[in-house]
């Protein structure tokens, strides 16, 4: 466990963002918050610059696609306080047809590639990103492959059976 408990961390955040965040839960002791795309950058910059919390390390930015929800794309931020050895996860749910969210490159240069990857695989557009283009897939690809909108492989196809490959 870190030097700060989740309660202290939550109280600290609540003083600033009381009504703008909701707690999703604490799976495996990892405090998980939900906020809106208007608040996210303020929240991240508060976490980073607060002299008490010092969440100076951005672990990851990624997304999840929930086709059954009203707001289908959940952008997930993981930040880590190297000083206090504590992590926090922040989720922002946005509309899948209009995926806009402000960029975190204003806070961490490391967010650049993470956001490019999230754009590449989920189609989330990070407004203000200096160079938002695909990073993993070919540039002329039109799909966002990690979205759950593609049919699964035809179970009846026979052209890739194991015995063709000596397996």
């Amino acid at each position, binding site marked *: 466990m870190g030097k700060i408990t989740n309660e202290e961390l939550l109280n600290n955040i609540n003083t600033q963002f009381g009504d703008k965040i909701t707690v999703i839960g604490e799976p495996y002791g990892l405090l998980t918050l939900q906020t809106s795309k208007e608040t996210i950058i303020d929240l991240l910059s508060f976490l980073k610059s607060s002299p008490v919390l010092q969440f100076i390390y951005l672990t990851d930015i990624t997304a999840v696609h929930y086709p059954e929800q009203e707001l289908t794309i959940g952008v997930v931020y993981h930040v880590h306080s190297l000083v206090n050895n504590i992590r926090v996860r922040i989720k922002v749910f946005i509309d899948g047809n209009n995926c806009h969210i402000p960029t975190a490159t204003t806070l961490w240069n490391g967010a650049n590639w993470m956001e490019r990857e999230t754009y590449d695989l989920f189609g989330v557009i990070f407004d203000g990103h200096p160079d938002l283009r695909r990073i993993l*897939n070919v540039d002329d690809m039109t799909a966002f*492959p990690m979205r759950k909108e593609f049919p699964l*492989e035809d179970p009846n196809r026979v052209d890739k059976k194991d015995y063709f*490959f*000596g397996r």
Partner: protein
Amino acid sequence: MSDIQIVGAPAGVEGAGFFATSLDKAVGLARANSLWPLPFATSCCGIEFMATMASHYDLSRFGAERLSFSPRQADLLMVMGTIAKKMAPVLRQVYLQMAEPRWVIAVGACASSGGIFDTYSVLQGIDEIIPVDVYVPGCPPRPEAIIDGFMHIQELVKTESTRRRETPEYQKLLASYGIQ
């Protein structure tokens, strides 16, 4: 009698003090026994190829002593491993930079057909972008299989006419890949 094996002479007319054969056969013999490969190794098949190059299997026995990582003077493009769609233009450029005559061997399931990576980001076989002479099956193929594929290439090279590259069929094949 030494047990060193040397390449046998091609079919020809033999007499006292002379030996006559066709230029095709002589050139084929020379080319087949000094194939210079360009290993394009992207994954596990490449590791298997390293074993093929090493002392136990010793690919150099076939005159393939100079493994070049440059298209310059290379005859045989050996593609070993998964070729992602993003890698495809690079592979094609390497092929285009090789001088004729050139041969291509696709080693392993991935290079031959995409293998287990039946997905949006992987090229489903390098024959979608460049012509292939020999496919080596296996996932990964053992060094013996790679050597077998190599010897199949040698057979092709031996029996190929020196004029094959000028034939309309060959030009048509290259044109079907958009290569002039």
